[in-house]
């Protein structure tokens, strides 16, 4: 099972889900292809591998519908830094999706580094996400890419903005 999850819940009929095939399904293009197709009118998304330089997307970010960052294994944390560069360095405000091996315990960290959608396969993880029982900590010792309030005490601290 593959679902797309955001903080608003499960996304039905998401066009960018990676196991949807078909002639008219829009495509997540690898970096090199995306740079070539940037003049096309059709909407397109980009999927980066961990070794790709996220900063290379700068010239085409305005025309990109979605950026997906790949986690080939949960231990490969390069996507966290790619996400920070996209959000903070390049000012990307569109959809940023984590694909590959997405662990429940990483989702709160991914949200902090600027991811806002997640392609998830693991049933117990999907269940927890649907129930909105995320295993994160709402107090942070460092600023990141997410929207937070200033924390108490020192300039580097932040607190989560809780929904409802």
């Amino acid at each position, binding site marked *: 099972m593959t679902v797309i999850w955001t903080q608003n819940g499960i996304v039905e009929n998401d066009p960018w889900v990676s196991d949807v095939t078909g002639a008219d399904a829009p495509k997540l293009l690898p970096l090199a292809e995306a740079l070539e197709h940037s003049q096309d009118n059709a909407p397109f998304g980009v999927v980066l591998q961990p070794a790709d330089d996220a900063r290379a997307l700068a010239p085409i970010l305005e025309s990109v519908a979605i950026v997906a960052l790949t986690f080939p294994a949960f231990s490969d944390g390069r996507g966290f830094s790619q996400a920070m560069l996209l959000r903070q360095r390049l000012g990307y405000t569109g959809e940023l999706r984590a694909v590959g091996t997405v662990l429940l315990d990483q989702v709160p960290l991914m949200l902090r580094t600027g991811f806002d959608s997640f392609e998830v396969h693991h049933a117990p993880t999907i269940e927890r996400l649907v129930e909105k029982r995320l295993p994160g900590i709402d*107090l942070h010792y460092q600023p990141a890419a997410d929207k937070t309030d200033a924390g108490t005490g020192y300039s580097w601290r932040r607190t989560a903005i809780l929904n409802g």
Partner: protein
Amino acid sequence: MYRYDEFDHAFVEARVNQFSDQVARRLSGEISEDAFKPLRLMNGVYLQLHAYMLRVAIPYGTLNSRQMRKLAHIARTYDRGYGHFTTRQNIQYNWPALSDMPAILKELAEVEMHAIQTSGNCIRNVTADHFAGAAADEIADPRPYAEILRQWSSVHPEFSFLPRKFKIAVTGSERDRAAIQVHDIGLQLKKNDQGELGFAVWIGGGQGRTPILAKKIRDFLPEADLLSYTTAIMRVYNLHGRRDNKYKARIKILVHETGVEQLSAEIEAEWAHLKDGELKLPGADIAAINAYFAPPALAPRAEGWGELAAWKKSDPGFAEWVGRNVAPHRHPDYAMVTISLKPIGGIPGDASADQMDAVARLAEEFAHDEIRVTHEQNLVLPHVALADLEPLYRALLTDGLATANAGLITDIIACPGLDYCALANARSIPVAQEISNRFGDPKRQAEIGDLKIKISGCINACGHHHVGHIGILGVEKKGAELYQISLGGSGDEHASIGQITGRGFEPGELTDAIETIVDTYLANRTGAAETFIECYRRIGAGPFKAALYNSESEAA
């Protein structure tokens, strides 16, 4: 010392709950052991040879008596009555049950302690000079900066899945007691020409399979830029550090393969985007953290000078202990006392619950409630009046804590080795014990003088053998233990990596080989003033190799 505010308390409590939830999901099978492993490691829980092991963080090695009593209580209640102080200024418990972990973490939280990031591929416990805030030669106290780094690195969303573990050390004086040149990042506090505080920044040092000394990439980084610059280093490492081979994943390999000039240029380029951002440290925050580390009010105790002289005259044992284990404090009426956890024939770094309680009591009575853990696996009372040294010594004697061997040949660093550790290839503890017994005679030790022996039971080098004046590395060869000896290593401001002497030694030959090395030193030194390491640097490895191996080639 630093005291938690509401934010810190709430954070640690949330972390305990988070880990309890993770343990519950693991026990119910919702997460695989593979996926659980990095989670438990980031909470200090290892699966060892015989049991789970819990490593508790002691940030920059600073403790008060209440915390030490809690460590004693945990040793008594959840373990077998003792704990093991480590080369990262932490404490390890070797026998707790997994099901007790949440309870232990709750107890630790009561005294502002935790086990966060004592393992795993994340930023580990930040270490500092164990004499911080007391040493006469200090430019500034490194602990406030270590504390700022500790906070900033805790559950860092970007840097929790690094290529490999990441260790930061901070020293506050030219005399490096924090071994910064064998750390992923080493920071040396200094002042510039305008008298402003900042850091010399070193990166890419490390031990393990490929020992490399750190390279200096910045001569002066203003203190306000500590977090932004560290972020730049971490980001470049996280994106470009090797992930194809765990033995090549530390930043030292990235520095080596990329070249320090190019890597440092990449770090500077990244930092240019970050330096004026939200990580810039306001002076008020630095001052507020510094205030926690204000030295205790030390009343004049000049009477100690005369008393100390008289006590030393009347008790040679006391005089010997003062000579080895007591160092000058910046206040002339006070001293810094090293409590040796290296009794002759004992296990380096182990302390019983009763000893921990005793140290807590003595810290309250004589030392302004401050205790330090050293990376050499001893404890320190950093603020003791000279006038209190004698009663302190008497009390330490009754608890087996007055061994007068700080810095001597029996003050051995050893990792837990094959007696506990799942990674080890050979035993370390019995090796240390045998050497300690062989050289235990106080006269003989004193004659040999300063000599650091460091023992690791595998190439991961937790026992810091690469920077031992004499380093011992246990390896496995054809199913048997074999020990390689290296000479000339040093972890101070004149850091060097030891060189292997030649073929290894079987367990039964090793202590004799160490004795041969020591005898060679004694025969070659210019006098008692020339220490082992100075002598080695003057005469080189040749005479030592000849003494170790020539007799056998003659026999053959």
